[in-house]
């Protein structure tokens, strides 16, 4: 890792291209989910235009799925919005952790960066960095641009050709992101100092999931914050 740290920071353009390239396998998974979301959008009688606009300006897949599912189930726009928003509270933590990447950048880059940060490209950036590559803002943006393009194309295609779309589960594709995040965790593991924070996160999610009626969104946030708090309190610098 020390050797790579000495090498110069790659330029914005090459980072953008690297981000685009590395996101490809994840984008395949996103495409499958995009098709599935398009199917749901068609059930909500959303047009291709509405589906495309939603994908571009919301750009948070799981919250779009929940919100439109609520709409199909007969909920009001307000109730659907709240359900989607609850799922997005996780994004608060993601953009909080982008502090160093965004520091000192002009406002348009900050706005672009926070909008394009999703679980996938954000996690990928951290995994890449944990392996000694000095990637940052433009790598994240490159991955985000790739994802937004694939997400919009796939959701609009799904909404337009709803009857021809297969279920992700039938192809085993529902497991795509679980496997991807396992690979990313392997890259983020940096030694025994992480044992307690990570163990704490797992324990919190298991306990909250098994013993309390908490909504999954809150369980995730508690698990993430709990592990981070343990890491903060432990002084192993």
């Amino acid at each position: 890792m020390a050797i790579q740290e000495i090498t110069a920071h790659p330029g914005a353009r090459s980072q953008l291209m690297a981000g685009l390239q590395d996101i490809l396998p994840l984008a395949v998974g996103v495409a499958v989910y995009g098709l599935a979301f398009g199917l749901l959008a068609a059930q909500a009688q959303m047009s291709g235009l509405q589906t495309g606009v939603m994908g571009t300006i919301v750009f948070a897949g799981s919250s779009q799925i929940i919100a439109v599912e609520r709409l199909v189930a007969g909920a009001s726009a307000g109730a659907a919005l709240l359900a989607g928003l609850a799922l997005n509270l996780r994004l608060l933590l993601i953009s909080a952790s982008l502090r160093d990447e965004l520091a000192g950048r002009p406002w348009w880059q900050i706005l672009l960066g926070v909008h394009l940060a999703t679980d996938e490209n954000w996690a990928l950036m951290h995994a890449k960095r944990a392996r000694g590559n000095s990637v940052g803002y433009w790598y994240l943006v490159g991955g985000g641009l790739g994802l937004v393009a694939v997400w919009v194309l796939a959701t609009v295609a799904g909404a337009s050709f709803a009857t021809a779309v297969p279920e992700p589960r039938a192809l085993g594709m529902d497991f795509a992101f679980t496997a991807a995040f396992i690979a990313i965790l392997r890259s983020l593991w940096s030694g025994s100092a992480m044992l307690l924070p990570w163990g704490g996160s797992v324990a919190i999610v298991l306990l909250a999931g098994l013993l309390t009626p908490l909504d999954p969104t809150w369980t995730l946030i508690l698990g993430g914050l709990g592990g981070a708090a343990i890491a903060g309190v432990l002084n192993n610098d």
Partner: protein
Amino acid sequence: MTETWPLILGLAAATFTVRLSGYLLGRRLPDHGPWARGLQALPGCLILSLVTYLLMQGGPQEWAAGATALVVAMLSRSLPLTMAAGIAAIFLLRAYY
């Protein structure tokens, strides 16, 4: 549906507000000491929480496929290979067990 455009615009505004608030919050935290250590550990803890939750939702087949993905991740350190192995494992497990 007349509810569609309000939902799209409302959810977009709310989501962007959450994203921007996260940045503004992160910027106000000190850059060394416990807060900085916590913020640095946050990505791994959040992703691990997500994986734990996803595996909890599944059963023995998902756990076995997760274990397969973990072994491939540890041996190969490759994202595409790990995804391919996980998807293949869950597909085969569901088809034959």
